[in-house]
């Protein structure tokens, strides 16, 4: 545990001393909730269609695959015409692209970013490394199966996959969303303990609340 997260005794302006427990006082402790589709099917279909046509990707590159994401914004590929945009904050993003190998250290940040996104949210694993470790299969600090830690909706294979492959992958993701099959967020909430156990097994210095709201 990092020092700033330890319990500490502070003195208020009135001279009374009391204890501050950062993890309890500064962070929300609630577990994630399952948000099942609640509206009539036609409404949910409309929403799913909208979700599929408005995919906001979190601007967060984890590995070398991040370099393949940038061309999507350029005139050559122009992903905007498919309703795909980048957002700089996880609060507004729907899609987390794990772009390549994921070291344990980065995994921690990826988990935070994912948990701070709002339901429904999607994860796409990009490249072989996210599938089975790829060329980092024997590395001491790189995870090999992304779906142990985050609910992945779609993998795009390749080392590296070209932007065309990404576009094709996004189209597949859209189909999944429209079909109502992209319920990763709920899956994550339902199997929260399992995911946490997996995450904590590789992240040895767990210095954050269990769920990062």
């Amino acid at each position: 545990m990092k020092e700033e997260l330890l319990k500490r005794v502070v003195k208020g302006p009135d001279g009374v001393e009391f204890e501050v427990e950062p993890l309890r006082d500064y962070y929300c402790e609630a577990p994630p909730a399952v948000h099942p589709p609640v509206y009539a099917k036609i409404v949910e279909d409309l929403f799913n269609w909208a979700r599929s046509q408005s995919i906001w990707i979190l601007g967060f590159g984890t590995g070398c695959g991040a370099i393949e994401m940038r061309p999507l914004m350029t005139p050559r590929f122009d992903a905007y015409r498919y309703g795909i945009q980048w957002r700089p904050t996880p609060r507004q993003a729907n899609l987390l692209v794990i772009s390549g190998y994921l070291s344990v250290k980065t995994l921690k940040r990826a988990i935070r970013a994912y948990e701070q996104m709002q339901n429904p949210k999607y994860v796409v694993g990009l490249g072989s490394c996210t599938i089975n470790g790829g060329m980092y299969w024997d590395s001491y600090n790189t995870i090999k199966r992304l779906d142990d830690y985050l609910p992945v909706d779609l993998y795009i294979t390749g080392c590296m996959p070209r932007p065309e492959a990404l576009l094709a992958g996004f189209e597949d993701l859209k189909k999944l969303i429209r079909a109502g099959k992209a319920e990763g967020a709920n899956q994550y909430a339902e199997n929260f303990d399992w995911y946490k156990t997996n995450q904590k097994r590789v992240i040895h210095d767990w210095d954050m609340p269990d769920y990062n709201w």
Partner: protein
Amino acid sequence: MRELHTRLKQLFPLGELTEQRPDLAFVTVPAAFLRPTLLHLRDREGFTHLVLLTAVDWLEEGQFQLTYLLTNRHAATTLGLRVMLPREDARMESIHEVWPTAATYQRELREMFGIDFPGSPRLHEEFILEGWNDIPPYRRDFDTLKYARESYNERPGRETHDPATHMKQKLYPGGA
């Protein structure tokens, strides 16, 4: 380079010069003489730039080799100083006063090889790894594969091919 070596040798008990290129050479220095040699090189010989500081694990010899790579910008020559350390309880004098950037390299070496540099700033803070709980991963007695197998789940069905044979088979299925 030779001249330099001759000059230096009159001052310090250096080993033999290994010349890789006309502008790149390595020489071994006893650990105790490293610091004066570095200072001499920096202040008298114009080797003002510490390019890198790295280590090699000679497991079989029971030694770590530290390499201090220095560059003389004007003469466009690079000289590497090698220092051999015993592997057991490895420690080396810190040179962060000579080059402040060395502190960062020394942090890395402590984390990855477990070589101690007493007095180096922020030496014991985590550098690249977070929450590492095994022996330093760059030591050769650390079994990376075993560690990876134990720590990270494998996906069943993964195949591994040697690129040379695999590509040969693919390109020339007949086996020409």
